[in-house]
């Protein structure tokens, strides 16, 4: 059962530090930050250094791996447990797939850690909760550690540990401002969003667990990847189909696919670095990673592959249409993320693992870039808002108390929403750096040559065209929408004139935030070079080929690339016609609303999916719980079973049966009877005790005679 750790020198001995480094950072901040009053820069620095250390370890591991031509390395740290037939080790699996994930996670993660130093510095001040700064970085490091466990695990169970860990961190971070809503008003909206994410993920986790159980019982009593993949070759196809479909449920939960994607847009309640790191770049790609890791299963059952592909493709299109009708800058990006995850899932579903992974990496770059830029925009607006307020009221607010009263006062009128695109406009002048970064991210996402998104998306589309025409059309249309909503966003946010006072006074973000943006922007531009569709440039394909075996390396298909680029350009053109040529004015409704009518209302309201869930799942669930609580639990169990049957019987038994009969007529009667008998007996006996010595002597004589008689005649 034990796999010998094939270690051939290199830096593989560092593998555990992949996880230990973030955990070390976490504990330093957890234990010392408050006690020794660490400055914010020190806290952020420690967390970033921990993340950076993990990144360096990733680089060294990938380098060592490339030296031995990608041959998989298992670094066994310790025995985990051994129960019956199941015995598992804490083993780090380093192959080209996991190494790629490690690089992306720790690399993008480090940049976002650095960015978060600047972001959280202001965020905690806007919310008057400076004590939470350290907590944020502790969570962030914990997430990083969990995510690295997820990708470096050598068995489904270890993967599951990371899988649950990131889900938990997601819950913690979405609910980071748990006592307020996104506009910092006192409410439980954020914690509800966190719960929603957690519950939707639980549904997915259920699928993952069932799949794991099926794997364990049907595929050789093991959960170790190589063992089960080997056993799968001889397993009945029905079992593999069941496993893959239950895994798909897990994927739908974690990677926000239909029907479980609903949590991801709400997850934007978390601070923006969280949205960028977890809900765009890394955590949500865990599902894609899971399908890729389970590739040997999926390759065996084309039907399951087809389902995965279609789920991804439909999600891609569906989410893209919703993104068109959103006004919140982060909500647009959230639905865009769902849509792009759909692209990846579709890609890995059709077996185009390299294309899917290529898109995953590129997406991590440009979506993190977009989210972080959006965070910069939001903070810029927030600064402008405070600036404008100070202008209006020179005395301003000084304490938290006053601010609180002020906020309450505001609720009645209008709370400024720094995330609403209708409150923006013309921000390319006030926030030029952020504008350029955002533009690069948007172009990359839209798939414009030569940005990273162009290459990765076209590879998916090409694979789809060759194998799954239906998915190809869905994805192409989704790509069209992608370009459109990104165009809409750019025009609405950065062009035209400022629609509100805060937008007019928006201020650019500090360097600690813009420098990570710049790094991500560079990666978004040149990321395509990872896997250019030309002979000799399939670097990523070659690299991942170490894990998947020989991969089909497709040359550039001008037709596919041309169609998608053309559609993207047309979409941007249309968005310019609608939003760019005549910029939105203050208070104006979206110009798409009039021509599209009900369709736009649908997009605006997310096709009423949440309402549908509320009606189909939550309401019946509420009803059911109400029924269970009121009728079954209270009336039946409490009132009837407990009160009437058990308590009533007990009362009856104790008062009448036991008290009246058993006690009074049974036990008391015996005791009283004994007393009466002994009284009666003693009244008779005292007659014998007559005080005459001679009668005693007679008794003695008679007794002696009796005994002697007995002894003689017996």
């Amino acid at each position: 059962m034990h796999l010998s750790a094939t270690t051939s020198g290199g830096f593989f001995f560092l593998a555990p530090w992949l996880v230990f480094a973030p955990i070390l950072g976490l504990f330093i901040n957890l234990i010392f930050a408050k006690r020794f009053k660490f400055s914010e820069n020190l806290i952020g620095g420690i967390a970033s250094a921990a993340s950076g250390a993990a990144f360096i370890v990733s680089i060294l591991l990938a380098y060592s791996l490339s030296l031995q031509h990608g041959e998989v390395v298992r670094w066994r740290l310790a025995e985990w447990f051994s129960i019956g037939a199941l015995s598992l080790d804490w083993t780090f699996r380093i192959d080209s797939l996991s190494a790629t994930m490690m690089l992306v996670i720790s690399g993008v993660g480090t940049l976002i850690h650095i960015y978060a130093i600047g972001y959280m510095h202001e965020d905690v001040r806007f919310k008057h909760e400076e004590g939470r700064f350290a907590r944020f970085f502790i969570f962030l490091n914990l997430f990083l550690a969990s995510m690295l466990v997820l990708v470096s695990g050598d068995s489904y169970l270890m993967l599951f540990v990371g899988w649950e860990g990131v889900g938990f961190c997601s819950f913690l971070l979405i609910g980071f401002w748990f006592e307020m809503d996104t506009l910092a008003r006192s409410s439980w909206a954020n914690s509800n969003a966190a719960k929603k994410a957690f519950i939707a993920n639980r549904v997915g986790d259920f699928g993952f667990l069932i799949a794991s159980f099926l794997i364990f019982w049907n595929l050789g009593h093991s959960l170790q990847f190589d063992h089960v993949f080997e056993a799968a070759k001889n397993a009945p196809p029905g079992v593999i189909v069941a496993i893959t479909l239950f895994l798909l449920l897990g994927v739908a939960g974690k990677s926000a696919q239909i029907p479980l994607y609903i949590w991801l847009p709400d997850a934007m309640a978390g601070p923006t670095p969280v949205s960028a790191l977890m809900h765009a770049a890394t955590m949500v790609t865990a599902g894609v990673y899971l399908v890729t890791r389970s590739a040997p299963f999926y390759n065996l059952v084309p039907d399951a592959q087809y389902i995965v592909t279609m789920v991804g493709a439909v999600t891609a299109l569906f989410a893209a249409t919703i993104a068109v009708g959103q006004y919140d800058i982060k909500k647009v990006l959230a639905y865009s993320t769902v849509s792009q995850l759909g692209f990846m899932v579709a890609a890995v579903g059709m077996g185009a693992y390299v294309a899917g992974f290529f898109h995953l990496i590129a997406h991590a770059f440009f979506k993190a870039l977009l989210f972080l830029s959006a965070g910069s925009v939001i903070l810029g607006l927030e600064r402008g808002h405070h600036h404008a307020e100070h202008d209006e009221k020179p005395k301003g607010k000084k304490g938290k108390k006053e601010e609180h009263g002020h906020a309450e006062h505001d609720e009645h009128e209008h709370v400024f929403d720094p995330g609403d695109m209708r409150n923006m406009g013309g921000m390319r002048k006030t926030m030029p750096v952020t504008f350029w970064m955002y533009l690069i991210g948007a172009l990359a996402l839209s798939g414009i040559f030569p940005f990273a998104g162009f290459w990765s998306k076209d590879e998916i589309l090409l694979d789809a065209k060759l194998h799954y025409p239906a998915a190809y059309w869905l994805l192409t249309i989704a790509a069209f929408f992608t370009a459109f909503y990104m165009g809409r966003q750019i025009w609405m946010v950065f062009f035209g004139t400022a629609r509100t006072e805060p937008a007019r006074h928006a201020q650019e973000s500090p360097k600690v935030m813009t420098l990570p943006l710049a790094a991500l922007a560079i990666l978004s531009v040149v990321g395509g070079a990872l896997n250019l569709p030309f002979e000799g440039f399939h670097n990523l394909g070659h690299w991942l080929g170490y894990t998947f075996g020989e991969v089909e390396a497709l040359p550039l298909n001008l037709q596919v690339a041309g169609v998608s680029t053309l559609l993207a350009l047309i979409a941007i053109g249309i968005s310019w016609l609608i939003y760019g040529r005549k910029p939105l004015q203050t208070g104006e409704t979206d110009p798409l609303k009039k021509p599209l009518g009900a369709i736009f209302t649908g997009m605006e309201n997310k096709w009423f999916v949440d309402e549908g869930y509320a009606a189909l799942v939550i309401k019946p669930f509420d009803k059911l719980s109400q029924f269970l609580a009121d009728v079954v639990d209270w009336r039946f169990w409490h009132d009837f079973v407990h009160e009437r049957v058990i308590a009533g019987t007990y009362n009856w038994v104790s008062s009448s049966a036991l008290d009246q009969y058993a006690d009074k007529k049974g036990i008391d009667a015996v005791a009283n009877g004994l007393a009466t008998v002994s009284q009666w007996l003693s009244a008779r006996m005292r007659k014998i005790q007559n005080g005459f010595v001679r009668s005693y002597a007679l008794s003695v004589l008679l007794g002696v005679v009796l005994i002697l008689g007995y002894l003689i005649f017996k």
Partner: protein
Amino acid sequence: MVSVNYYIILSAILFTIGALGVLIRRNPLIIFMSIELMLNAANLAFVAFGRSFELTQGKPFFTGQIFVFFVIAVAAAEVAVGLALIVEIFKTKNTVNIDEVNSLKG
């Protein structure tokens, strides 16, 4: 040689007379005398059995006779105590009639 049976019969007669005396008479002195009679009936039986046992064994064997000495000693002691009690009873009750000494009746 007189058979042991005769001694035993005599002993039984003496014992019966003594027992009847204890049961019938009310004067404590007479009762004491009756008790002496019963003790001596027993002594007679001891000596008779002792002698007959000695003859069957064919060698001196004084067990029975020795026991008689014990009985005589105990009887003497008992009489001493008993007479003292009678004197005391007479002092408090001015009578020695046994039937009038019954304050321990139930």
